[in-house]
């Protein structure tokens, strides 16, 4: 199995043990994906982590976009903006950086 900074990750680069997450791991994952983590990225990552802590699942796309609209302004509360931050998708790439499991289903 591969690892990032010593933390085990699965075939798709998601942390195997969610407790292993550190900010450095998020930064390393972003670097590997050619993404520079800005404050906006961290806002999303922190929201994802808080939501997960409460509900044991990533937020629905709509919940996420609404939360972002509240924090960063209405013009940013849409999935296009989130895709500009996370080109591979806020659900998949965002969750991976945030140390959440990959949301899977008919999505």
């Amino acid at each position, binding site marked *: 199995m591969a690892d990032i900074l010593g933390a085990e990750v699965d*075939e*798709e*680069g998601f942390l195997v043990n969610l407790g292993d997450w550190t900010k450095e791991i998020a930064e390393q994952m972003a670097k590997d994906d050619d993404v520079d983590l800005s404050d906006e990225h961290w806002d999303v990552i922190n929201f994802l982590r808080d939501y997960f802590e*409460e*509900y*044991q*699942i990533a937020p*629905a*796309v*709509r*919940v996420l976009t*609404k939360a972002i609209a509240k924090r960063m302004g209405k013009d940013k509360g849409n*999935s296009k903006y989130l895709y500009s931050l996370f080109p591979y998708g806020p659900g*998949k790439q965002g969750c991976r950086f945030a140390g959440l499991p990959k*949301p*899977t*289903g*008919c*999505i």
Partner: protein
Amino acid sequence: MAKEFDIPVLPTYLEIPELKEGIMDGEGPFKSAQEFQKPLGFPGEKIDNWQQVAIDKMGELKSKYRSVQVFLDSCVKCGACTDKCHYFLGSSDPKNMPVARQDLFRSVYRRHFTFAGKYFPKLVGAKELDDDMLDDWYNYFHQCSQCRRCSVFCPYGIDTAEISMAAREVLDAVGIGQKYCNQILGKALTIGNNLGLPEPALRDTLLDLEEEIEEETGVAIKYPLDQKGAEILLITPSADFFAEPHIDGLIGYGKVFHQDGVSWTLSSYASEGANFGMFIGSYDIMRKAALRIRKAALDLEVSRVMVGECGHAWRVAYSFWNTLSGVGAGATDEFGQKLQDQLDHRYPQPQHIIEYTHDLIQRGKLTFDKSANDDRTVTFHDSCNVARATNMGGIPGGQFILPRDVIKAVCNNYVDMERSTIKESTFCCGGGGGLLTDDLMEIRTKGAIPRMQALKAVERDNGVNTLTAICAICKSQFSKVLPKFDFDPYMIVSVHQLVSEAIIMDKPQTDTDDATSAETAET
């Protein structure tokens, strides 16, 4: 990470491709780890005596499902199916011809279960089940979306999907499962839905949605959860709670229920329409998932069970629920009988949300402002499981007629794609049958080509800018593959999203002062 591949150029006309042998060879999708295999009762990894176990399992399946044996015995290699599979047309790999895919399984069947194959294997194309063959099974039976288009053209009616399901069941029995399906089934059977949305998250998401719709429309539309004594239990794919564009369809269902004034509920225990037990070919697991719905229906004391926009859910519900779980008719066990007594047989059981909305439209109970959809020219993608395995409305071809009727009732501009690519001949979206996972993006993209080509033609000739579907998998698959072929990823919408945009809601009876003060309080 998934491997890189070139996005094919969309052809102007769909032609039978020149064969490229081995082009889709590979290791197949990610394999399921022990932690996902064990809870489903499958070995955690490839077992030592896998050959014996696999052959025994084949023997069991051929006796248990007569159809499998008939399909394996009756192929005469006429070739009618060869150019009917979207994965073959899109990938050019001859092993994606339905007959060749079946033959991976059939040749082993012949070797072990037919006289000629046991004694003269070479004469009848019988082959041993060795490691290479098993690898081919895993790879190529995960390049079949079980869409059954090939079976429409087979003069014997051989159903590749059933062979594909049987092969996957054998693979699971020897410890080789697919990560995507088996991980999801684990969540569905413990938490209640494929996504793993626990009750608090589901409740919170629905409350959030209620607030948003009320803000937008001024109408207090409710999304009841676990409401005992409601008339209708809605079983919908969990993607409807979570993903886009699916959730706009859920908004549409809520508006229709609200206008009808019927009481309805979702269940947190059975919060999933999808049933991946079918994809992996396991009757037992399919039944376990279906029994959650029966339990929810009994516990909530509903009198109707309705299915949302999910393709294979409707197949499982329409074709299998009656014997799996007693929704429908024909249940013989105690709980099935109890449910039969509880259900209101004046309505179809189960009923599809499209049948329900269609019926309300027919009876003049809904009014629409069709001009709300005037910016759209719409076409409809028939989802494979709905098109080829079910019916709606109890009339021949109802599964094609009703969704189109609903669309035409709510928008002015509708165009069908080319006849050979719709209705019973519909091309799969490319992501069905347990293939909707990133690690299969290459086959998903290539398999989407026939549908994308037909869509391109109506975009060019008729200005189509909206693609509709009634399947969560189709919607997700399209939103990923559309941009690869220069379409707008947001052009795919739920049928009930169109309904939602055009429906005229009765406003609540409040006087103007109250409305104004409520508005002020909100801002």
